[in-house]
């Protein structure tokens, strides 16, 4: 009778070990889908902690005033959509935010189907707040030039926890665009380009607004370029792929991390959570459009 008992105990131990591994009891649990080429570093991006001395980041990377800062969002590790997204490079699916950074928007609509990838070179979409060197980033990775910020996989950060309005996000607030780091951790070096044919309709102290010529006249907003070295002025007509300026960290006098905050806005017609039909001009998730655009760029397709 002893042999079956020992066998049963062994089976139970194996089951416990497997469940424990999967649940992260041993500290190395999978926190989401493993992207195709996780950990790859693109050619031309040999960056790391020593790439450039970090500047102090005035706002902690939050892009909002401290008293407006949104508390860390609900832990949402179960939002791990496993519908595959098209792609030939390592990237997490749309809506798959960094753990403990909020709840992503899970719909997979490509809102700007012909988007021209807004960097002339390779670039890395990820969170500049919750990533290394960000205001809410890992304490053991204090440098914004950390290699993890400049390597695949890409990561969506639309709807990431912020205090700004973003009606498509679960609680009506969240990050209104996608953070994209340039090819290397060097400011004022990498070109940012027009996402569509259009007109530069506004320029602020750290924002450039491009309104697309073609319906539905999407509005693209680029934040944190080097504003005193722009290639365009308000009123300029631009073609998709045309240089606008260089990625930097301008943020109204106080630097942020080196990245470009990229927004897509448009007039939309939808339904509110209480069932009312409503039309409004609001923020659309850029990630899926960026993935498709980057695929086209990597395939050597020019901008339309």
């Amino acid at each position, binding site marked *: 009778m002893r042999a079956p008992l020992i066998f049963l105990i062994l089976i139970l131990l*194996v089951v416990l070990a*497997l*469940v424990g591994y999967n649940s992260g009891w041993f500290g190395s649990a999978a926190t989401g889908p493993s992207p*195709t080429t996780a950990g790859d570093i693109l050619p031309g991006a040999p960056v790391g902690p020593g790439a450039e001395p970090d500047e102090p980041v005035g706002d902690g990377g939050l892009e909002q005033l401290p008293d407006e800062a949104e508390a860390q969002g609900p832990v949402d590790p179960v939002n791990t959509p496993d519908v595959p*997204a098209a792609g030939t490079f390592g990237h997490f699916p749309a809506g798959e935010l960094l753990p403990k950074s909020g709840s992503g928007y899970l719909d997979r609509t490509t809102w700007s189907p012909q988007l021209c990838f807004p960097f002339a070179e390779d670039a890395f979409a990820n969170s500049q707040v919750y990533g290394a060197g960000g205001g809410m980033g890992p304490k053991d990775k204090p440098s914004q030039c950390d290699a993890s910020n400049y390597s695949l996989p890409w990561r969506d950060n639309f709807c990431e926890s912020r205090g700004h*309005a973003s009606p*498509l996000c679960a609680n009506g607030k969240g990050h209104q665009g996608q953070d994209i780091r340039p090819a290397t951790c060097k400011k004022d070096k990498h070109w940012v380009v027009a996402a569509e044919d259009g*007109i530069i*309709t506004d320029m602020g102290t750290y924002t450039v607004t491009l309104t697309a010529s073609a319906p539905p006249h999407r509005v693209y907003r680029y934040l944190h370029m080097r504003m005193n070295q722009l290639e365009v002025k308000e009123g300029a007509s631009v073609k998709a792929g045309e240089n606008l300026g260089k990625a930097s960290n301008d943020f109204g006098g106080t630097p942020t991390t080196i990245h470009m905050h990229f927004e897509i806005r448009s007039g*939309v017609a939808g339904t509110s959570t209480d069932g009312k039909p409503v039309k409004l001009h609001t923020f659309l998730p850029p990630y899926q459009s960026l993935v498709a655009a980057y695929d086209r760029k990597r395939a050597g397709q020019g901008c339309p």
Partner: protein
Amino acid sequence: MRNPKIRGLIVAGATLAAVAASAQVAPTPTPSTRPGAARPAVVRPTVGPITRPPLPGGPGGIDWAGAVGGLRQSGGGNSPVGRRLDPAAVDKTRLPILLPADPDLMGGARIYSFGDYYSITANLTGARVSLTGAAETTPLPATSRLTLLNIGPEQLVIQRTVDGQLASFVRYGVLYTAELRCDAPSDPRCRTDTYVRSLVAKSTVVVMGKAARQAAGLGA
């Protein structure tokens, strides 16, 4: 294996091990597919459907009678507000252009017209204002819901942005926006919606160029 109890335990153990092994398989990773390749049709009740690129709504639905009423109330086009806007761009715009009754603000404003959409930019000290009008809206997927705490009259929605306040509302069947952007993030005008609400409240001046007048049946 002659003992049926032992055999039963072995079968049960194997089943448990198989279940545990399947439980540790990570979710499907992002596949390497070529652009344009067909995506696997995976249906998940908790995830919104894969949707096609949205088709924009048609430009119809403009309430021209209402817009003409607004035009008349605001002086029949003789209001000083908007007189300094580029007349060619105004004439090209097939929408009622809506302006705030604020000649100082509008004095140096610039208009960029795409026919069925326009964008006007004006400067304030330390800030800028943008006004847009759009005939078309893009339908959201049926599975998406907009979390809006407060929808005002004319579908007024105000959103806090990184650098200011964005208001949108529907009048005459047109989706209008009024946006304030501040040079300094701490500018009090951008921290509350007071200024942008006042901008919406005084947006009463209707201007129509040739294309809009024709569309409204007023002739050019």
